[in-house]
């Protein structure tokens, strides 16, 4: 079992600087790299995989720095965005590729075994263009595992997948984590999906990295507006928006609790039907049904606040323009910055 760690890795491209990034990657840990487009997620993976030069820092495999080795000698499996399957090869010959280039005599047997394990045996003779999104994902993973990597780097696994296939991918990650005990670094811009598989989170923003945290810490301390929105806080306000609020309003109440970069709070829950006490009153501007009840947006001048109203069979429907009373529990309010 191999232990990897990434220490102070930096990558300097033409107009972009990434890092320093520190990661501990013990066996079986899934680390999600989150961030918007252009945050440096793919740059980080390509730097670790050996396709971009390392400006500074070390990539350690069992304590040995592999930072100047070519990609084929790093012992890691990189699944690029779009999966990088070989269109001119069948599914079976995609999976056997890493074994073929190593001159392995058991290439055929070993790839067939992997095909069986991932339920791909009936598709062995097909070409990638004939497969569905979920099947392609499994081929990519089977091919990556055929190389017997000691670390898997996967760029946007959920891209272009339908709902069913996304669900199946969770099982694939379970396989990597539990059976193979391989550390995985997975890049995504979808925090909801990342939360469903990852143990640790690295957040990138404009090339700079926050210290790696777990999900609970991230939700309890969303350190800046970007992270707060990213992890699912619907109510995030910057100091400028709060400064415009009149005295005695929700805005000025939040301003007192805000940090230098503003404030975030989760959707307040309103009792069924919108009845009951509440410190603040808003005017309903949008109502959308969800499995957890109604997702409601109200206007509390000058703010817009997202709320959740518990399902209430038989209650009068909530209409746009109606007043709605709600509370913002102090414990759910997080200062940012």
């Amino acid at each position, binding site marked *: 079992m191999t232990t990897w760690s990434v220490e102070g890795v930096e990558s300097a491209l033409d107009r972009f600087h990434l890092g320093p990034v520190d990661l501990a990657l013990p066996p079986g840990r899934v680390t999600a790299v989150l961030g918007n487009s252009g945050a440096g997620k793919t740059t980080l993976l390509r730097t670790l995989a050996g396709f971009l030069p390392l400006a500074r820092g070390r990539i350690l495999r069992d304590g040995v720095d592999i930072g100047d080795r*070519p990609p*084929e000698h790093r012992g890691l*499996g990189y699944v*690029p*965005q779009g999966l*990088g399957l070989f269109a*001119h090869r069948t599914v079976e010959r995609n999976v056997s590729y890493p074994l073929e*280039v190593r001159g392995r005599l058991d290439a055929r047997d070993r790839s067939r075994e992997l095909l069986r394990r991932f339920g791909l045996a009936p598709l062995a003779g097909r070409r990638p263009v004939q497969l569905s999104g979920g099947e392609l994902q499994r081929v990519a993973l089977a091919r990556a595992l055929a*190389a017997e990597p000691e670390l898997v780097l996967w760029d946007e696994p959920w891209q272009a997948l339908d709902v069913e296939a996304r669900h199946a991918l969770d099982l694939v990650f379970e396989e990597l984590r539990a059976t193979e005990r391989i550390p995985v670094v997975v890049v995504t811009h979808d925090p909801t999906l990342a939360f469903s598989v990852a143990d640790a989170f690295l957040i990138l923003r404009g090339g700079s990295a926050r210290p790696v945290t777990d999900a609970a810490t991230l939700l309890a301390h969303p350190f800046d507006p970007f992270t707060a929105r990213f992890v699912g806080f619907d109510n995030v306000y910057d100091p400028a928006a709060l400064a415009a609020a009149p005295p005695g309003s929700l805005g000025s109440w939040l301003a007192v609790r805000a940090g230098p970069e503003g404030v975030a709070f989760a959707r307040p829950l309103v009792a069924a039907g919108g009845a009951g006490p509440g410190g603040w009153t808003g005017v309903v501007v949008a109502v959308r049904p969800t499995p957890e009840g109604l997702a409601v947006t109200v206007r509390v001048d000058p703010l817009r606040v997202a709320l959740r109203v518990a399902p209430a069979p038989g209650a009068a429907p909530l209409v746009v323009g109606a007043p709605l009373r709600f509370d913002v529990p102090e414990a759910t309010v997080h200062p940012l910055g």
Partner: protein
Amino acid sequence: MSPGRRSAPPLRRPSRGWPWVALQVVLAGSLLLLFLLPIYALFTYASPAEILSAANNPAVREALWLTFYASGVAVLAALAFAVPLGYLLARHPFRGRSVVESAVALPVVVPHLLVGLGIFLLVIPGTPLYRFTTAIGFPVYDTIWGVVLVMVFVSAPYTVLAADLSFRAVDPRVLEAARSLGAGPATAFLTVSFPLALRGIVAGLLLTWARAVSEIGGILILAYTVYPGGIYGGPVTSTISVLVYNLFESGNLAGAAAVSSVFLLIAFVLFLAVRVGERSGWVPWRRGELLP
């Protein structure tokens, strides 16, 4: 009553604008006539007997053999030299790339007689290149090497261009996946880049061959008559294009037309073979992917 039995209402097609369609047919049709009428004239000027006798004439056969031989060597040279250049242009941004790209386009725009003259000036007796090529056994003037050299000069750009475009179309991420799976740069090229670009490269090689086989301008100066030597054992002959030119110059119009017809028939058969290959699945490409 089942829905299928009901009579379908007439399809309501949007108007196509007949004057516009007619204009396109007239313009495109005129060009097609220009393409086809000369071929028709060639085939009908000489009688079938004359064409048959031309096909059996040893001098014509020698010229045909030389032409196909030299053009085949030119295609191999394009594969060996033009494909790497195309790869370089597609994959490695370097300083002065636009200069190289212009140089590649040069043979397409320069009159071919000038090409022949240029090479001639390089290799006439007394020049260093003359001494060098003679010393290593590749004399150029009036040999098959001269023919091949001119052919490569005028036709290789088509393969460079096709290879450049085809390699550009290969997703670099697929290559990165291959590298990460254990392939070195050369292995990744041979197992991924090249097979994925092969279709375009073969299409380029076909164009290169077509251009090489029809070359005359440069050959008139550099290898008007081809003497045995190097990879060509003889006899003394000339390329088919020069042969036709000679027949025409000497006033033998029927002979020129007959030889042209033989050459066209062979080219047509080769064209057909590629088509059949595309259709049969012998080659991994579908109809229309290699030849237009």
